[in-house]
C-alpha cells in the first residue's frame, strides 16, 4: 500500500507539472534566468580572481644586489644563506654581465646607446623566487641582516596593492554571489508561492476529502525538484556553451593578450554543473516547502 501511495505521488508530480504548463514554464524560466545571471557573475569573478592570482605570481620575486667588492666565495656564501631562508622557493644568480645583456635586450634597437659605457655599471645579483608573496616581509628582514648586500629590490608596494585587490575581488564576488542566491530563492519561492496560491482551492479540497499533508506535499515538492532540475540543466547548457564560445572567440581574436588569462571552459564546467544542479534543485525544494506551509493549515 505504501508503494502504491508513492507511485501515485510521483504520477501526480508529473501530471501536475504538465497540467499547469504555463506556470511550470514560468518557474523553469525563473530558475534558469537566475542561474544564468549567477553564471555570468561567477565567470567574471573567477576570471578576475584568476587574473589576480597570475599577476601575484609574477611579483613574488625579490632581487638582491650584491656589493661590487666581494669575491666568488662570499657570493656563494650569500647564495647558500638565501636558499636556507623560510618561504624561499628558488634562488637564481645573475652576474653583472648577464644583467647588462638583459638590459640591452630590453632597449632593443636602441641598445647602441649604451655601447659607449666605460665599464658595466650594473651589479651582480640574486633573484629569489618566493613560495608565496606573503613571505616577502620576512625574507626581506632576514636579508637585511646579511653582509655584502648593496640593495634589495622587491615589489612591496605593488605586492600589497595586489593583495588588497585580490582580497577585494574575492570578497566582492562572494558578496555579489550571496546576494544573487538570496535573490534567486526569493524569486523562485515567490513563483512557487503564486503557483501554489493558484492551486489553493485544489489543496484545500484535497484536505477536505481526507488527504494527509504528506500526500499533498509530495507531488508539489517533486514538481519543485523537476522544475529546479530542468531550469538548472538549461542554465548549465547556456552558460557553458556561452562561455565556451566566448573563450574560443577571445582565443581567436585577441589571442596574444587574453587567452592565457582566461580560465579554459573545460576547467570551469564541472564546478558549474555541480553548483547549478545543487542550487536549482535546492531552490525548487525550498520554494515548494516554504510556499506550502501556509496552505496546509486547513
Amino acid at each position, binding site marked *: *500500500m505504501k508503494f502504491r*501511495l508513492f507511485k501515485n505521488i510521483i504520477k501526480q508530480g508529473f501530471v501536475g507539472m504538465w*497540467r*499547469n504548463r504555463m506556470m511550470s514554464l514560468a518557474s523553469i524560466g525563473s530558475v534558469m534566468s537566475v542561474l544564468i545571471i549567477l553564471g555570468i557573475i561567477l565567470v567574471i569573478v573567477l576570471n578576475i580572481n584568476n587574473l589576480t592570482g597570475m599577476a601575484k605570481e609574477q611579483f613574488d620575486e625579490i632581487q638582491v644586489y650584491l656589493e661590487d667588492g666581494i669575491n666568488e666565495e662570499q657570493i656563494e656564501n650569500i647564495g647558500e644563506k638565501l636558499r636556507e631562508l623560510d618561504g624561499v622557493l628558488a634562488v637564481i644568480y645573475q652576474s653583472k654581465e648577464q644583467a647588462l645583456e638583459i638590459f640591452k635586450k630590453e632597449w632593443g634597437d636602441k641598445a647602441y646607446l649604451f655601447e659607449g659605457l666605460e665599464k658595466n655599471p650594473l651589479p651582480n645579483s640574486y633573484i629569489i623566487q618566493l613560495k608565496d608573496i606573503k613571505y616577502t616581509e620576512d625574507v626581506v628582514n632576514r636579508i637585511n641582516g646579511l653582509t655584502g648586500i648593496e640593495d634589495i629590490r622587491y615589489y612591496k608596494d605593488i605586492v600589497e596593492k595586489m593583495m588588497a585587490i585580490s582580497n577585494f575581488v574575492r570578497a566582492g564576488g562572494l558578496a555579489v554571489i550571496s546576494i544573487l542566491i538570496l535573490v534567486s530563492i526569493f524569486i523562485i519561492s515567490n513563483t512557487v508561492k503564486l503557483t501554489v496560491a493558484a492551486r489553493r482551492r485544489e489543496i484545500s479540497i*484535497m484536505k*477536505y*476529502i*481526507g*488527504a*494527509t499533508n504528506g500526500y499533498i506535499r509530495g507531488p508539489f515538492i517533486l514538481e519543485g525538484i523537476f522544475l529546479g532540475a530542468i531550469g538548472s540543466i538549461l542554465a548549465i547548457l547556456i552558460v557553458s556553451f556561452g562561455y565556451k564560445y566566448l573563450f574560443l572567440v577571445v582565443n581567436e581574436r585577441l589571442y596574444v593578450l587574453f587567452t592565457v588569462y582566461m580560465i579554459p571552459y573545460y576547467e570551469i564546467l564541472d564546478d558549474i554543473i555541480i553548483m547549478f544542479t545543487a542550487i536549482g534543485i535546492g531552490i525548487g525544494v525550498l520554494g515548494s516547502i516554504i510556499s506550502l506551509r501556509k496552505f496546509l493549515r486547513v
Partner: protein
Amino acid sequence: MIDFINVSKVYGNGVKALSNINIHIDKGEFVFIVGSSGAGKSTLIKLLLKEEDPTDGKIYLNDMDITKVKNRRIPYIRRNIGVVFQDFRLLKNKTVYENVAFAMEIIGSSSKEIRRQVPMMLSMVGLSNKAHSYPDQLSGGEQQRVSIARALVNRPTVLIADEPTGNLDPDTAWEIMRLLKEINRRGTTVLMATHARDIVNAMRRRVIALEKGRVVRDELKGVYDYEV
C-alpha cells in the same frame, strides 16, 4: 455515533452561527437538517468536518472527541465521512473519473479496486457518459452528482450531504434520494441539510430544524414545517 454537546460557534466577525446545540445521532440514522437560509446548517456540518472549530462545547464522532484531535489526525477522521459539499468542491484539473478515483487513491486503494468501484459509482449517479469531462464542462446538476459519487465511493460510515439536490430537477433528485436511502439501509449514517420540502415530507425521517443557530425542532418521522 455523533454527539453535539452544548456546541456554539461565533465566527471571527462576530456572527453567532450556532448557539448551544445539543444533538445525539445514532449509528444508522437518517437525519434531515432544515432551516431557513443562514440558519446554521452548513456551519453544523463544517464543525463535524473540522473545517471550523467550535467556539464552545464538544463534538463526538465514533466516541472520539474531535474538538481535541491533533492536526495530524484530522485527515483520518475525514476519511470516515463522505461529504457532499454545498459548493461541490471538485478538483478543476481532474476529470470526473479522476475526481472520484482521487478519493480512493488518498486512502491507498489498489488500482484494481479503483477501476471496479469508480465506474460503478458513476453509473449509479447517471454520469457514465461524462466520465472524461472536466468539471467546467458539466452542468450544475452534473457537478453535484460527481460530488455525491465521490462522497460515496469509499463506503463511509457517515455520509454528510449539504443540499445535495439543490441543483437537481425533481426526477434526478428522487433518484439520488433512493441512492441515499439504499446506502442508509446498508448501515451508513446519513446527515442531510436540505431545503427540499417535498423530499423531507415524503421520506418521513428524523428532522432537526434550526432557526438562527438554535435547534427549534427535533422529531422522528418529521416534516419540513407545519405550513404544509
